[in-house]
C-alpha cells in the first residue's frame, strides 16, 4: 500500500506546523492553563479557517506536545445527539484505559471534534445541543475544528461563550514551499526549487492539496515547472458565504454563475440560502421584487426537474437563482452583509425534534397506562392542571414536560 504523504508528514509537534504563529501561541497558552490545579475558564477552543491549512494537524500536534491522548470524532462518524454524547460526552468526564493495558488516573485527553460545522443544516439532530452540554460538563480539553466560525456560533450563543476562538490563516507560499522541499529531500525526490514555489502558489494556502499534488508529481522522474503546470490550477471550494456575496454583489451574470459552480452544494439547498438572505441584501423594494421573481421562477424549474426526474432543467434553475438574482438589482449594495442560515431548515429541524419528543412521550404513556397515542390528549389536559404528578409518574424530562404543557 502507498503511504498517504499527508498522514506520513503530519506534524508531530506544534512548532512543525507551517505558519499561523499567533494561532499556535494562543493554543499553547490555553493548553498550558490545563497544567494548573484549576481548569481554565474556557474548556473548549474553536479553530477556524480554510480547508487544508493545518487546523486538525495543529490540534493533534498540540496533544502530542502536551502528552495528551486524543478522543476523536471524525467527519465520518454520526453526528446526532447520542453519538456525540456517547463518545465526546463519555470521554469528557471519565478516566480511560490505555490500549497498552495501562491505567493512569487524571491523565488528560483531548477531545477533538473534526469538521464540527458539519453538524448543521439538515443533518443536525441535537448535535449542537450535545456539544454545548459536553463543553459545560467536561473535565478535559476540547477542540472543535471548523471551516466557518460564524456559521457555528450563530447556532448557539452558548458555544461562543464557552470557547476560545483561534483563527487560522492561509500560510505563506514560502512556508509551504519549504515544507514541500523537506518532503522531497526525505523521499529522495528530485525537484526544481521554482517548481515547488509554483506548486505552493497554486494551492492558495491549502497545504493538504499541495502535498497531494506533490505525491502525484513524484511519480515522474523529476519535478519541474512543466509538470506542475500540467496539473492545471486547482479549483478551490469557495464557501457558501463568499458565493452568496458574489451572487448578490456581482455586476455580471457570468461572475454569479461561476461562483456557484465552485461551490459543492445542491441547487435546491442553495436556493434556500438565496431566499433567506435576498431581503437582507437587497434593501430597495424594486430590487427585492425583481429578485424574488427570479427566486420563484428558479423554484419552478427545480420542482419540474424533480417531478420529471429531468435534471437537465437544473441549469435553468441555477441560471435564474444566480445570474437572474444578480441582475435584479440596480446597482450593488456597498458594505458587508451578515448572512443568515435559512430559517426554513431551522424550522424543519425543530419540527423533527417535536416529533421525536412526541413519540418518546407516547412510549412512556404506553408503558405506564397503556394505549399511548390514544391517551396523549387526555394526559396533556391533566398535565396542564397538575404537571408535577404527570412528570413524576411518567418520568418526564423538562423538555418533554414543556412539550406536553404547551401543546
Amino acid at each position, binding site marked *: 500500500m502507498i503511504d498517504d504523504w499527508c498522514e506520513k508528514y503530519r506534524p508531530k509537534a506544534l512548532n512543525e506546523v507551517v505558519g499561523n504563529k499567533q494561532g499556535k501561541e494562543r493554543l499553547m497558552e490555553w493548553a498550558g492553563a490545563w497544567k494548573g490545579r484549576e481548569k481554565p475558564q474556557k474548556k473548549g477552543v474553536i479553530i477556524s479557517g480554510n480547508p487544508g491549512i493545518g487546523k486538525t494537524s495543529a490540534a493533534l500536534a498540540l496533544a502530542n506536545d502536551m502528552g495528551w491522548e486524543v478522543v476523536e470524532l471524525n467527519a465520518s462518524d454520526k453526528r446526532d445527539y447520542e453519538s456525540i454524547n456517547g463518545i465526546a460526552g*463519555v470521554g469528557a*468526564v471519565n*478516566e480511560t*484505559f490505555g490500549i497498552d493495558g495501562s491505567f493512569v488516573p487524571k491523565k488528560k485527553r483531548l477531545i477533538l471534534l473534526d469538521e464540527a460545522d458539519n453538524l448543521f443544516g439538515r443533518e443536525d439532530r441535537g448535535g449542537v445541543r450535545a456539544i454545548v452540554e459536553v463543553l459545560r460538563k467536561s*473535565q478535559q480539553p476540547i477542540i472543535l475544528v471548523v471551516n466557518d466560525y460564524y456559521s457555528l456560533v450563530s447556532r448557539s450563543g452558548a458555544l461562543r461563550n464557552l470557547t476560545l476562538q483561534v483563527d487560522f490563516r492561509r500560510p505563506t507560499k514560502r512556508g509551504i514551499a519549504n515544507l514541500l522541499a523537506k518532503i522531497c529531500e526525505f523521499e529522495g525526490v528530485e525537484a526544481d526549487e521554482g517548481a515547488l514555489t509554483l506548486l505552493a502558489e497554486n494551492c492558495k494556502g491549502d497545504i493538504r492539496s499541495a502535498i497531494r499534488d506533490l505525491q502525484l508529481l513524484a511519480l515522474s522522474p523529476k519535478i519541474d515547472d512543466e509538470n506542475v503546470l500540467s496539473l492545471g490550477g486547482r479549483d478551490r471550494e469557495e464557501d457558501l458565504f463568499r458565493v452568496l456575496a458574489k451572487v448578490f454583489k456581482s455586476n455580471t451574470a457570468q461572475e454569479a454563475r461561476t461562483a456557484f459552480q465552485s461551490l459543492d452544494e445542491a441547487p435546491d439547498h442553495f436556493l434556500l440560502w438565496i431566499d433567506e438572505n435576498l431581503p437582507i441584501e437587497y434593501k430597495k423594494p424594486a430590487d427585492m421584487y425583481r429578485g424574488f421573481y427570479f427566486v420563484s421562477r428558479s423554484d419552478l424549474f427545480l420542482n419540474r426537474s424533480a417531478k420529471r426526474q429531468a435534471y437537465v432543467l437544473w441549469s435553468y434553475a441555477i441560471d435564474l437563482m444566480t445570474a437572474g438574482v444578480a441582475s435584479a438589482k440596480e446597482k450593488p449594495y456597498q458594505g458587508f452583509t451578515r448572512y443568515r442560515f435559512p430559517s426554513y431548515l431551522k424550522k424543519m429541524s425543530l419540527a423533527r425534534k417535536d416529533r421525536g419528543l412526541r413519540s418518546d412521550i407516547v412510549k412512556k404513556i404506553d408503558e405506564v397506562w397503556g394505549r399511548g397515542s390514544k391517551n396523549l390528549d387526555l394526559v396533556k389536559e391533566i398535565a396542564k392542571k397538575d404537571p408535577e404528578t404527570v412528570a413524576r409518574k411518567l418520568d418526564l424530562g423538562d423538555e418533554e414536560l414543556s412539550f406536553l404543557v404547551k401543546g
Partner: protein
Amino acid sequence: MFRSEVKPAVLRQVVDTVSIIVGEGKFRVNQDGMSLKSVDPTHVAMVDLELNRSAFESFEADDQELGIDIEKLKNVLRSATPSDVITLHLDEESNRLILNMGNLMRSMSLLDTRHMTDPKIPDIELPAIVVMDGEELERGIKAAENVSDHVIISMDNESFELRAEGDTDSVDLKIPNDLLLDLKCDKRVKSIFALSYFSNMIRAARASKVVKIGLGVDYPVKIEFDIAGGKGHVLYLLAPRIPG
C-alpha cells in the same frame, strides 16, 4: 478450520456481554475454546471474555481470529428457538461464517480484524472485593437510573453501598456484610462510575446469579461473573469518573 455446535442461550450470553462494549468483536478461537478482549470506542470500558470448549455441544478450531459484527449475530439469534442447536462453521473460501439452525441457514461475511484494536487488559490490584447476588444490585441500579447518570460505589468492612445523587433526589442501596456472600475490604474505598456502563454490566451479569466486584479509591472497577453455567467467564473493567 472452525466448526462448532452451540445452544442459542449460550451464544446469546456471549452476544449480550460483548455488545454493551463494542459493535464489532475480534473473537479468538483455538482448541481450548473461544475468547475475546475488547475496549469500547471511548476507552472507558473493557471486556475480557472466555468460553471453554465444553460450553459448546461440539467444538473444533484451529488457532485463528474471527471478526464478527455483533449486531448481526444478535439478529440471527432472534430467529432461533430455545430447542435449536446452532451450527457455526467458517467457510474459508468466501471468508464467511455460516450459521445453521434447523432448516434455516444464515451466512455472514466476516470483518477484517487487522483494523481492530488488540487491547491489553490492565493488571489492576484492588483493595476491596465483594461477592454478591446480582439481583439485589440490579434493583438498586434501576432506582438510581431515575435520579442520576452516575453512581457512587463504596465499601468498608461492614457493608457495600451504592448511591446516586440527582439535583433534587437521591437513591441509596446499602447491603450489610451478613447479606453479602463474601467481603474482603482492607480500607474504605469509593469510586464514581458512569451509570450507563455500570448498569449494562450488572444487567449482563444476569447470566449468573453471583457477581464479584473489585473496587478501589477513584480507581477502575472490576466486575466478574460466570456464563454458560460456569463454562465461561466474563471480566469487565470500567474506568471511574474524573473526580472534582
